[in-house]
Each structure stands twice: as structure tokens, then as C-alpha cells.
């Protein structure tokens, strides 16, 4: 076997110090297989070495949390013995290299994380960030990523019900593809990954192992440069057909009591799944690689241990149950092999062709993995109130905003996703949160993903808070009670103190908001080193939120439903224009402070709105976010095909901040006039800012003293941008 040279160590992404540590832990030099195993287990991706110290700050507990971070996905109790299981994960680097397969395998990976815990996936979301539309790669990347997500999710028959998309130049060389999966299980039938006990068979199920994605995990932890597009063989190809069979087979096996532990093979495949299962179970694992189903001839132990072939799972069974399990996997025409056994040695022992090719203490791979308290620097938050031209017409700016890349309708995207399969999608894409009914009940899960990276750059702490608050608000706006979040923390190079400062600031902001809103973090993922040629992306801690609705018949949507409804704004409008979409798109400035988030106000306003919906009094609600108040009203009008007359403001110096400011904790609601008056009173009694600003009706948006704009004009601006942009160059869909 090759001698380990400093060069080889470096190629494995390990520092000299880390290598020294490995030798110490082993009491000898590692061989190449062992080095490979260490390199993936100690990679940022698997070990969270830069973030672990800070992730501890996140609140993770609540009476309804059944499983917090640390397992394949988090679990919450949603009553009646049901549990919701969810997690979000990134596939950023692979998607940049091969958008279709990168996104597709990202979707497949997160689904496995969820069904490995015993859940049937019921909804998918995706949070996407692309470079500026004019960048020569953007269109190709959007096209590939969207068809990849659809290609995998549609075939699986799991509805993709929502997401978010931003375009910004900081993602030109490093797009973000974050996928979230939500599943349902019975609370008393959750499967964990602790391989407890010795002498139990370790079985491999799913697809055969090939040389796919070797070093994917280390790649996800290394900065990109122009040369790394050469590292292309790391791309894995997804096979959703096999995954669908794997899902059904696993659920069938899970209906028996044969399983002790089960874990999907994600990044670092066999290595991380076996090490993690042994670690959690406090046991050892012995693998015989000759038994591993192989797709290619002459695979080395190194390749097999590091392969990231998709659609594979590792399980530990109760002894004697192998035949029963095998019959199930054979029925589904999947590979099944007993490839090892659990031991009491707490060591990971790997055999190949009769020889021991790796033998190491499992704790060396997990507990002993380095944790770094990396130096960080909090940049002074950007502050100040930016100047704007007060003479610009509100209606003109509104039309323009609705057709900008970040505000335009995402219909072109979601229509490529099957969002109605499974016949439980009660709120389709286009609303504040998607709502998926819990099958055979009246309960619903509300799901959203949110983050405003521009706020996070200006002020990481407030930006982190805002991401959580917006997710909470979107769930509230449909009438559900926000219960828990998963996160996907996408940042640049943590070895730069200012980036580390963004990471720490965002995490602390997230923690504060989650605590204040009783919205714990139950799972998540970190993706660092999102940089190209030294330029970091905007800090993008995507928050995936899930809430519970007791009765899906009492749900709000954004669409105006009746002519003559009064329009109320809940929450105070102060006119915060810093970092607003208005400022960026109309004035061409990315300036000013991020809007501050008053969590107490957020909670008070949100609880008030939710109760109105849950009591069956209000069915029309939209939260106010990107673009401000008038954009929210325009979206409600477009969705309902009913216009509105807005009777306040008009052309005053304050009109622009009033209509386009991005103050937080606000909602627009519409209700019949009499009811609206009562709501107005009740809000005031509760000490909540409320303003009655107009009424629905007609087929245009009329703003007093400002003018009128027809809905057809708004709709055209809103609906046309993305399809027109995408048809700029036809790229045949990959087959």
C-alpha cells in the first residue's frame, strides 16, 4: 500500500496538525484506506468542525420534540400518535458541476434521511440561489436544477410543494441547492441509527456500489476554484426508480420488528454510515467488503469505503431475521447482502480479500474529530437610512418590482414539479406556506423555507432572527401553529474571520428567534466554503419551518376572495427601506441596515392572526415580506383576480417607505367590512398596531392620489419575467 506522503495528506483535505492527531489516535501511521476514512469523517461536511461549538447555542427542545438534531432527521409529535419527520440538506457543489444530477441526487439524499427513520415522505421543498440572470451560466443552471429536482421528486411520487429562489451575483460561481423533505410516521415506530449490541448482522440494501462520488464529502468542504471543474468524476447519477423501490421495501421491513438500527448511506457512504451507527450504538462494526454488491470490477477497499453511490442503506438486524428481510428486498428487486456484524470492540474493522485493511477506534472518527473555535470578527452592522428619490411614482415602481428576478412569479418552476400527487396538497405553491393534509385526517402540516441573505450580510444577527421570524410568519399566515425548524446554513470560508463572524452572528440570531418564538431547531445541515476565487456568497442560513393546523378547512390563503372586503394591516409600518428590494431594484443600491425584528411584537401579532384563522373568522391573509406592503396587496389581488382600492398615503414623501418598506411582523388580512371593524377593535384592545387601509374590488389596484394600475398589467409583469428569461436559450432537457 502507498506510503502516506504530506502531499497525499493534503489531497485528503487534512492539515498537518490533523494528520498528527490521527497518528496519535492510532498509535501508528494510517494506511491509505484509513486515511481516506479519516478524511471524510473529519471533513467539515461530516464533522461540523467549524460550527459545532456554535450550533450548541440553538434551542432544540420543546415538549413536542421527539428527536432533535443528531439523527438522520428531526421528529416532532403532531398528536394522535402521528409524528412529522423532516430535514433540509444542501447539494450545492455537485449541482454547480452537473445541475440535473446534482439537484436530483440532493433530493434523493434528503428523502433517504427521512424514510430511514420510518417516515413516508409527503412533501418536498427547495431553497435555491442562483447567480445574476445575466451571468452566462445562470440559465443553464436554473434549467438543470429545476428539471433535476422535478425528475427525481416526480418519479418518487412525492409532491414538491414550495420553496424559494433568489438571484444574486454572489452566487455566480457557487449556486445553492437546498432541499427539504417532510415525512409522516407513527410516533411509536421511529427508527434510529444506534447499532446497539454485539453479534448482530449488518446488512446492505439498495443499489450496487460503484466508483461514484468518491471524495464528494471532502469536495463539499473545499473551496472551489476554476481548476476544480476538472474534479468531475465526483458526480453521482440518481436513480429515482430504485429509490422508490427502496422506499417501499424499507417501509415494508419497518412494519416488522426486525430492525435494530438503520441509516442511509449519504456523504461518505459506507464509511460514515457504519461509523455513525457504531458510534451511536456504542458498539464496534466489522465489515467484509467482499460481500458488498459491486457494480464495477476490481474496486479497491478505498473506493468502496468512500463511494457515494446513491440509493443505498445500511441496517443492523436482530440476529436470525436476515431471511425475512432478504425476502422483502428481493421482492422489490433490490440488492441485499449481509456485509458485516456488530462487535463489542468499539472499533471499525474493514476486511477485504481476506486481509484487514482498516482497524480503528470509532471514537477517533467521531468524538475525537477536531472541533475548531475559529477566530471570528463581527463586522459592524450596516446601518443608516438610505436616500431615495421621493418623486418616483408608486404604481410604476410596483409594476417594475413585480417583474424583477427576485419578485417575479415562480410558476415556471413549480409547474415542473408534481405538487398534487398523493392527493393531500391543500395549499399549492404560490401561497405563504404550502399545506399538506395528514392523510385520512383533517390535520395539515404547513411548510415553508425562508431567509433573506441581503439582510444577513448587512447584519448577521438580525438577518438570522429575520429568517426564523419570516418562516414563523409564513406558517402563521396560513393558520398553522409553527412547531419546529430545520436549517441549512450556507456560508463562505469559515477560516476567514469575517465569514466566521457571519456564521456566529446568524446562528445567534436564529437561536434568539427560535427561543422567543418557541420554534426549536430539530435538524439541519451546514454547507461552508461556498466561495469562488475567494469571493464568499451572501450568508444564506435557510430556515425550513413546519407547523400544524388542526383543521385544514380553516386555512387562509393569500387570494382575495370577495369584492368589498376591508383590507387591514396588522403590525406597525415604520417605513424601513434599508436593504429593501425597492432600494436595490429601483434605486440600484444595496444599502442601509437590515430591518430590525422585534420578536415580542412578532409573536403577539402572529398569535392574533392565527387565532382569527383558526376560529374560522378570516380566510384571507398574506404576510408582508420582500417588496413591502403594496407588493403583498398586489399579490393578493393577482391571486384572487380581484383588485383593491387603497385609501391611504398617496404621493407624499412618505409614500415610498410606507408602501415599500420591509418592516417585520406585519400581515395583510381581508375580511367583510363589519367583521373587519370588530377585528380592528380587538387588535387595538390587544395593543396591536392595526390600520384599515382599503377594500377589495374591481380589476385594478387604485391607490388614492397615486393612480391606478390594472391587474392585467401587474400580472403580465409578474408572470412573464421567468418564462421569458428561460426561453432566451433553449436547452434540451436531459434525458
Amino acid at each position, binding site marked *: 500500500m502507498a506510503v502516506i506522503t504530506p502531499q497525499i495528506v493534503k489531497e485528503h483535505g487534512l492539515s498537518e496538525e490533523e494528520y498528527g492527531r490521527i497518528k496519535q489516535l492510532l498509535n501508528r501511521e494510517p494506511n491509505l484506506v484509513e486515511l481516506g476514512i479519516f478524511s471524510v469523517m473529519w471533513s467539515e461536511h461530516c464533522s461540523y468542525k467549524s460550527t459545532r461549538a456554535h450550533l450548541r447555542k440553538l434551542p432544540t427542545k420543546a415538549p413536542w420534540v421527539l428527536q432533535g438534531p443528531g439523527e438522520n432527521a428531526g421528529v416532532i409529535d403532531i398528536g394522535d400518535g402521528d409524528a412529522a419527520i423532516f430535514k433540509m440538506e444542501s447539494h450545492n457543489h455537485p449541482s454547480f458541476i452537473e445541475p440535473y444530477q446534482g439537484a436530483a441526487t440532493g433530493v434523493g439524499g434528503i428523502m433517504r434521511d427521512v424514510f430511514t427513520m420510518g417516515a413516508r415522505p409527503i412533501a418536498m421543498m427547495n431553497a435555491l440561489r442562483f447567480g445574476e440572470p445575466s451571468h452566462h451560466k445562470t440559465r443553464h443552471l436554473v434549467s438543470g436544477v429545476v428539471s433535476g429536482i422535478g425528475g427525481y421528486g416526480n*418519479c418518487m411520487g412525492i409532491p414538491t410543494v414550495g420553496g424559494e429562489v433568489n438571484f444574486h451575483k454572489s452566487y455566480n460561481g457557487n449556486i445553492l441547492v437546498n432541499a427539504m423533505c417532510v415525512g409522516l410516521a407513527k410516533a411509536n415506530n421511529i427508527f434510529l441509527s444506534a447499532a446497539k449490541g454485539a453479534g448482530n448482522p449488518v446488512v446492505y440494501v439498495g443499489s450496487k456500489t460503484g466508483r461514484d462520488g468518491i471524495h464528494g464529502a471532502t469536495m463539499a468542504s473545499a473551496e472551489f476554484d476554476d481548476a476544480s471543474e476538472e474534479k468531475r468524476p465526483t458526480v453521482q447519477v440518481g436513480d429515482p426508480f430504485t429509490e422508490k423501490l427502496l422506499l417501499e421495501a424499507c417501509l415494508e421491513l419497518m412494519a416488522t420488528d426486525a430492525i435494530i438500527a438503520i441509516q442511509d448511506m449519504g456523504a461518505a457512504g459506507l464509511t460514515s454510515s457504519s461509523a455513525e451507527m457504531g458510534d451511536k450504538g456504542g458498539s464496534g462494526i466489522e465489515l467484509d467488503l467482499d460481500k458488498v454488491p459491486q457494480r464495477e470490477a476490481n474496486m479497491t477497499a478505498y473506493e468502496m469505503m468512500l463511494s457515494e453511490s446513491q440509493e443505498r442503506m445500511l441496517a443492523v438486524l436482530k440476529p436470525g431475521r436476515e431471511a425475512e428481510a432478504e425476502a422483502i428486498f428481493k421482492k422489490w*428487486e433490490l440488492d441485499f447482502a449481509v456485509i458485516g456484524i456488530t462487535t463489542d470492540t468499539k472499533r471499525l474493522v474493514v476486511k477485504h480479500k481476506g486481509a484487514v485493511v482498516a482497524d480503528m477506534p470509532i471514537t477517533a472518527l467521531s468524538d475525537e474529530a477536531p472541533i475548531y473555535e475559529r477566530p471570528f470578527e463581527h463586522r459592524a452592522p450596516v446601518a443608516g437610512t438610505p436616500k431615495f428619490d421621493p418623486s418616483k411614482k408608486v404604481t410604476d415602481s410596483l409594476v417594475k418590482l413585480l417583474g424583477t428576478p427576485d419578485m417575479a412569479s415562480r410558476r415556471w418552476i413549480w409547474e415542473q414539479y*408534481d405538487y398534487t*400527487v*398523493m*392527493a393531500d396538497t391543500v395549499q399549492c405553491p404560490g401561497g405563504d406556506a404550502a399545506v399538506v393534509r395528514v392523510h385520512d385526517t383533517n390535520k395539515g402540516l404547513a411548510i415553508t423555507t425562508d431567509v433573506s441573505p441581503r439582510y444577513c450580510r448587512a447584519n448577521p444577527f438580525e438577518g438570522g432572527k429575520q429568517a426564523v421570524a419570516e418562516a414563523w410568519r409564513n406558517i402563521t399566515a396560513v393558520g398553522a401553529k409553527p412547531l419546529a425548524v430545520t436549517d441549512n446554513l450556507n456560508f463562505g470560508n469559515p477560516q476567514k474571520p469575517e465569514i466566521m463572524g457571519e456564521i456566529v452572528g446568524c446562528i445567534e440570531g436564529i437561536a434568539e428567534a427560535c427561543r422567543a418564538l418557541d420554534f426549536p431547531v430539530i435538524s439541519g445541515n451546514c454547507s461552508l466554503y461556498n466561495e469562488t476565487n475567494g469571493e464568499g456568497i451572501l450568508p444564506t442560513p435557510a430556515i425550513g419551518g413546519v407547523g400544524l393546523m388542526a383543521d385544514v*378547512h380553516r386555512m387562509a390563503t393569500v387570494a382575495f376572495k370577495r369584492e368589498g372586503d376591508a383590507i387591514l394591516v396588522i403590525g406597525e409600518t415604520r417605513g424601513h427601506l434599508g436593504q429593501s428590494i425597492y432600494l436595490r431594484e429601483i434605486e440600484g443600491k444595496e444599502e442601509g441596515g437590515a430591518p430590525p425584528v422585534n420578536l415580542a411584537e412578532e409573536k403577539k401579532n402572529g398569535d392574533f392572526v392565527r387565532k382569527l384563522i383558526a376560529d374560522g373568522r378570516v380566510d384571507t391573509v398574506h404576510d408582508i415580506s420582500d417588496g413591502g406592503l403594496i407588493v403583498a396587496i398586489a399579490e393578493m389581488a393577482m391571486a384572487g383576480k380581484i383588485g383593491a382600492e387603497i385609501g391611504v398615503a398617496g404621493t407624499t414623501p412618505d409614500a415610498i417607505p410606507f408602501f415599500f418598506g420591509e418592516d417585520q411582523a406585519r400581515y395583510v388580512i381581508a375580511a367583510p367590512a363589519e367583521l373587519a371593524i370588530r377585528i380592528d377593535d380587538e387588535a387595538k384592545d390587544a395593543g396591536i398596531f392595526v390600520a384599515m387601509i382599503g377594500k377589495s374590488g374591481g380589476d385594478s389596484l387604485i391607490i388614492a392620489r397615486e393612480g391606478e394600475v390594472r391587474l392585467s398589467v401587474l400580472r403580465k409583469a409578474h408572470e412573464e419575467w421567468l418564462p421569458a428569461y428561460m426561453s432566451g436559450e433553449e436547452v*434540451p432537457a436531459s434525458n
Partner: protein
Amino acid sequence: MKSAVIVFPASNCDRDAQNALKQLTGKDPHMVWHGETDLPDVDLVVLPGGFSYGDYLRCGAMASQSNIVRAVKAHAERGGAVLGICNGFQVLTEMHLLPGALMRNADLKFVCRPVTMTVEETQSAFSRKYQSGQTVSFPVAHGDGNYFADDETLKRLEGENRVVFRYVEGDNPNGSANDIAGILNEKRNVLGLMPHPERVVDPLLGGTDGVAMFQGLIESLG
């Protein structure tokens, strides 16, 4: 009405069909695995939507070679009702129970959205509860729904009033010839269509326009 839903590897609207049948007939349909050789005693066989065999090679091609398909064919030949939805329609053309073929959508993209269709023909168990000329909205969700047949076949289909559902002009989501959304076989006991009637049987899920199809079947088949 007794019914069966055939389950192929990677069928994924089998549960949707099962729900709709259960809701509207009050009886659980039989779920029949593709490897079986016999059908239970049923009046209606549903070939559900999905991605049987991953839609690899051609949609529906591999499923059309399954064991159970022979039994489905025999059932159809005996006059039994067969409903193929989406992937099921593709399987029916691959089985040659229906003429023509379903090709890649003209714009090459998967499309999921509600579409509006007119009911062109009410002389069948599937459509008797609709009004002739009625417009209905069902969702589509497919990548290969572009109906193709040679001119002669199209002429025959039209001449024999076998086009049951037609996309409203301007709302053809896939480029289908003659805006065809769903067709009957000659004996009018086999219907294949791309849009999903089973997903519109509940007002909560975007409408109830699919209900009449199942009611028609129940009325005809008992």
C-alpha cells in the same frame, strides 16, 4: 362496483386512485401487484399514474410487458372496464389496447397544473354523467403526454366519437394532436387520459370535476 388498481414498480398514483375509489364506491379496491397473473373478480381495472419502471426506455413500455397485463387485456376483451390515467394511458397504448402513442411534451418539460377540457363524448360509462360540451378542470402532471397517431387513426377516432376529453383551445399543455386529452377504444370500455380525475374528487383539493367519471362507472357497472 368492484374495482382493482394495478401497482407497477414505481406506480405512484396508486394510492390516489385507491382513495378516490374508496371514497366514491364505499369499497376498498383490490390493489394488484404487477407480478400477479390473475385479476380478482372486478368490474373496473384502473392503471394508475406514476413512473412505472422509472419511465425508462419509454413511458409504460416495460409495464406493458408485466404478467398482470395479460389478465387486464383479457378483462378488456370480455368487455370489462379499464381506466388508464396518465402513466396508465401510456401503458394502454403500449399494450395496444388504445391506438397511438404518448410522446415527450412539445416543450420538453414536465408540466403540473390544472387544465380545462371539454367533454366531447358522453356515450361511455366513463363520461355519461357529464354533459356533452361541458368544460371541466383536472390537473395534469406529466412529461410525456403529447398524443400522437397517424392521420388515418386520428380520423377514425374523431369519426367514431372516441375522443372523450379535449383540451380547450389554448390550454393544450403538451402539444397533443387535435388537443386530445383522453380517448376510448373501439368497444368504448377502455379509456385512457392524461389528466387526473382521481385528484379532483374533493373540494379541498381543487375541485370535484372528477367525481362524475366515477359516478358514471358506478352507475354503469353497478
